[in-house]
């Protein structure tokens, strides 16, 4: 049960998010239009409007551990439909960053792992090396032979390459990663 105690500043989490992305969850009137418009809502454990509600009552843990923020595809339908003009997709993005920072148990570990491997590939080569991505992800998710038969087929047709092809100007990519280190310390 959520207990709103004397010691707790009920506005703390809301203010923290507000400072990070300039989106004020307290504006939300809980009309539910974001949930209604979200194409992935049926798969989410907390619906988008519930995420906003949790922020309103300073209930950060459920928000940072839910699957919602990781399942969000950032399609921004919610943002464009919100009658209060809250950029909910931006807010979800911020919540993902905070969740990584706080190091709490993730709602969707595999998605986080995928994101990390994907970004690592970008960081190294400036583009995705598909085979490397798939194999590393399969190792991380402990199912090394998943889709292996398709891999062979695609290799045969030249859809996958064995070696990574880096872009020319990798220094600029590295610069981007360096500048966004606040969120991606690794």
């Amino acid at each position, binding site marked *: *049960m*959520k*207990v*709103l*105690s*004397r010691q707790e500043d*009920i*506005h703390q989490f809301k203010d923290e998010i507000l400072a990070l992305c300039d989106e004020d969850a*307290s*504006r939300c009137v*809980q009309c539910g239009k974001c949930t209604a418009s979200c194409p992935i809502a049926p798969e989410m454990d*907390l619906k988008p*409007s*519930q995420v906003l*509600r*949790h922020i*309103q*009552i300073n*209930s950060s843990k459920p928000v940072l551990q839910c699957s919602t923020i990781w399942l969000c595809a950032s399609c921004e339908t919610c943002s464009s439909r919100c009658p209060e003009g809250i950029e909910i997709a931006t807010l979800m993005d911020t919540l993902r960053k905070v969740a990584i920072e706080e190091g709490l148990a993730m709602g969707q570990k595999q998605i986080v792992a995928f994101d990390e491997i994907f970004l690592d590939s970008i960081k190294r080569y400036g583009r995705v090396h598909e085979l490397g991505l798939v194999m590393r992800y399969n190792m991380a998710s402990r199912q090394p032979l998943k889709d292996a038969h398709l891999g062979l087929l695609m290799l045969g047709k030249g859809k996958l390459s064995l070696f990574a092809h880096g872009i020319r100007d990798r220094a600029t990519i590295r610069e981007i990663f360096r500048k966004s280190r606040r969120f991606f310390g690794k």
Partner: protein
Amino acid sequence: MTELSQDEKIKIMTYSEVLEVKGFVGNFDVMIRKKPRYIDETKCTGCGECIEKCLTFAPNEWELGLGKRKAVYKPFVQGIPNVPVIDPEVCGYFTTGLCNVCSKICEADAIDYNQKDEYITEKFGIIVVATGFDQLDTSVYGEYGGGRFKDVITGLHFERMLDTSGPTGGHVIRPSNYKEAKRVVFIQCAGSRDEVKGMPYCSRICCMYTAKQAILLKDHVPDSQSYVFYIDIRTAGKNYEEFYKKAQREAGAIYIRGRVSKIYEKGDQLVVRGADTLIGEQIEVEADLVVLAAAAVPRDGAKELAKMLNIPHDTYGFFSEAHPKLQPVESVTRGVYIAGACQFPKDVPDSVATTGAAAVKACSILSQDELTIDPKIAYVDTELCSGCLNCVQVCPFDAIRAEVVDGKDVASIVQSLCHGCGNCASTCRTKAANVRGFSDDQIYAQISAPLFSKRGGER
């Protein structure tokens, strides 16, 4: 109010009660009981010395028991006339006969312990009923403490606390220990929209006054935090939604959608257990003070007054309008108007609007020499009337009187009261009573026309 009391065309009778109403529009005979103040209004200068020196205290009704008053008192600061009243229930003179301090010190010699009820009968043209509403007694809610917790109060108590001339001088305190209240939980619909313990209707004013109180709380106690439990927020009115959002955004009020299931004590604080239905979880809030938005209910005695004025009321006791859309301030009795929250819970703008409407309706009748009414009303053929007066009993508007014509008793219609319902006409055994335009012959003719004429042919 003082300005009104000094207007020579306005006569205000305070501390008085209407006992009986007879007559009809333009000719009401009203009997009024003027209760004894035990102070001569014509002599009293309103200096207040008697109040100062009075030795006996009683709970202050105006402050809803939050403060005390003397046995001789003015009900509230702006009250008119500026004359105190002695409460014989507690006054030393009336209870023991030993005290007469006030009469001794009154320089104007205005104290008169021997005053008696005064009965006045006066003629009036129009009656406007504006008797207001009461708060539901929230002690029916055992889960909210049922009156056990001192720190569970109603919206009106809170309103008195916010008043700088109120019992706490404008400080929001916990009645249990007089310390400042920093965490306040407001509970909406305490009796409204509750078909079991309260009233089935929405009291309509609570959403807005709670938003106002949340904003004022932040003004009075800047480091306070308010929580509002609600079922729905109803902000139908000009600038109301904006005001409600101001309570959330500027005063930082946290609105929680769900009813409260119980309040319990933990140490010296209250814990409010409710649900946040938007996330589907139970929620508990630690609070210093809990404010219940008690349902608005009809005044005690509203039904008796309705009987006296011959106007209908609904099942709760709110007076009924003649037509819900087109005659919202008229009662079915001509010449009696209803204004403000005695008809249904209303906020200030609505009360002012209906009162203004009733006043103008009254003036439009009073300013004319003759009253124009619908011609389709009843009449009695005195030659046929047997004087049985059965019609008097069935008339819902009390519009039939007995009259002596040519030495015999007959029924007579008071034209300004009759609405042409036809009850008398259908009751009358001698066919003496009829409604103009709807006489028995006319009705029979109407029925026989379709029955006996040839289809499509000439009659």
